[in-house]
């Protein structure tokens, strides 16, 4: 008997559903689509919208609470609230990846970001691009006056959120919902790691120049150039990250 075929018709593992829900919500929190302090819908509503049972949803919320990404308050005005984790220590996470895994992440991300940028160049209209130019201006403002953000750490966190927003806006300009979802997922996975070499605001000028090169190629409708600079942007960041990983002692 073919075991693989048997496995196809075995009951769907409920932990897989819990993981999928945890994944979806954690991704949204990590990239700022769900903001710090935001109240989540009630358990019944959320379960309905995600298409899972309340039992599955409760397990997922428990996992998110343990990871510090959701806080539940009881009583009047209570409910589940989003918590942006103080810092899931990215250096500790970086240690868990070998260089070839990081290279592979970069390959996947470059494929998504490159194709999204090419399609954005071919399909976007000026109104699609206004948000991403606004985001780039905001990033320059934060980088030019980090004190205005409160602290250098807060300035860096804001820059990282804006960087994520820029890339999501480019992906959305491609008109592909799937590429946009994949961009959001990849950012949640390796966004905080790719940002590691920039801690302390170093390298902002170089990053900003690459962002403007991507946005410029998209605006000119130059698909091949947009793809090339978007891929280069991801691969450069991956290369910096691999250098950092190789210098980390076990």
């Amino acid at each position: 008997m073919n075991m693989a075929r048997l496995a196809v018709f075995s009951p769907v593992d409920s932990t897989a559903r819990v993981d999928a829900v945890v994944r979806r919500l954690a991704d949204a929190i990590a990239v700022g689509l769900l903001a710090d302090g935001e109240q989540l819908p009630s358990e019944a509503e959320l379960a309905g919208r995600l298409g899972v049972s309340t039992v599955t949803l409760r397990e997922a919320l428990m996992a998110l609470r343990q990871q510090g990404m959701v806080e539940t308050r009881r009583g009047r005005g209570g409910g589940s609230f989003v918590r942006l984790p103080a810092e899931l220590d990215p250096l500790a996470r970086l240690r868990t990846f070998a260089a070839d895994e990081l290279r592979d992440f970069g390959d996947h991300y470059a494929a998504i970001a490159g194709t999204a940028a090419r399609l954005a160049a071919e399909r976007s209209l000026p109104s699609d691009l206004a948000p991403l130019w606004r985001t780039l201006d905001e990033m320059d403002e934060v980088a030019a006056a980090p004190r205005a953000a409160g602290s250098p750490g807060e300035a860096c966190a804001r820059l990282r959120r804006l960087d994520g927003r820029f890339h999501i806006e480019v992906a959305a300009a491609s008109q592909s919902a799937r590429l946009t979802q994949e961009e959001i997922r990849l950012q949640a996975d390796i966004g905080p790691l790719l940002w590691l070499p920039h801690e302390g605001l170093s390298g902002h000028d170089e990053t900003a120049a690459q962002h403007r090169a991507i946005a410029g190629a998209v605006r000119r409708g130059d698909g091949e150039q947009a793809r090339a600079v978007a891929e280069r942007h991801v691969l450069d960041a991956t290369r910096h990250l691999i250098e950092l990983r190789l210098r980390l002692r076990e």
Partner: protein
Amino acid sequence: MSTPVSLAQAGHDHAAAAVARVREAAEGVFEALREVRDAAVACVRPAGGARRPVAADLAALRPLLWARLRGGALPAHLPAHVTALIAGIGFIAAPGLLADAPWYLEWWQENPSGAPVRLLRNMDPASSAFYDYTHWDWYAGPSSGAERTVCGPYVDYLCTDEYSLTLSVPVVAGGSFAGVAAADVFVRRFEGAVLPALREIPGPAFLVNAEGRVVASNTASWVAGSVYRDGGSAAFSVRPVGDLPLSLVTAAG
């Protein structure tokens, strides 16, 4: 037997029928928005305008919003392909309108497995990287005076993860702009509503928004999401869809 002249005439009639079908679908949504607008005007002028409105005043809109969502108690006089379009609907307050919330959405979404669901968003511009809604075309259009706005198709990564259209109208109360009544329609459902009519047209035919983005089409060469940039090309003729910001493009002939 058909002569070329009668074929051209048939294409013309089918194009006119497709324009009518698109108008009907969009007007069905705008009709729901006019109801929301009128109800919102009453909500934002509590006691005849004697006091400033608060967020709780907008809760009175809910029965109407729920009824106009797909799966709700839709008006019987509209055809079925019009009534099942609305995936999200609501009122978006102009910043500063409400006494107790500077930013506020009364926004509800369809829920295939039960009662409509309220969209909750962090409305504090200082802590949310995303939700200053005044930048979005569905808000900026009505707030700068457009009577009817059709925004998109666009990837709605904030609410639904779907490729969507947002239709909106201004809400004006006591002579001043109070916010926007808006509705989300998934592109795939809008296509479902108009494709039967587009398919009847011989040759390529597609619907574009004011900027030339294709909304629905009878050909893979001009699929939804692509851009029609050949303004003034002799190969195509362009028909307006009533006074909506939409046009039907067909092969000239």
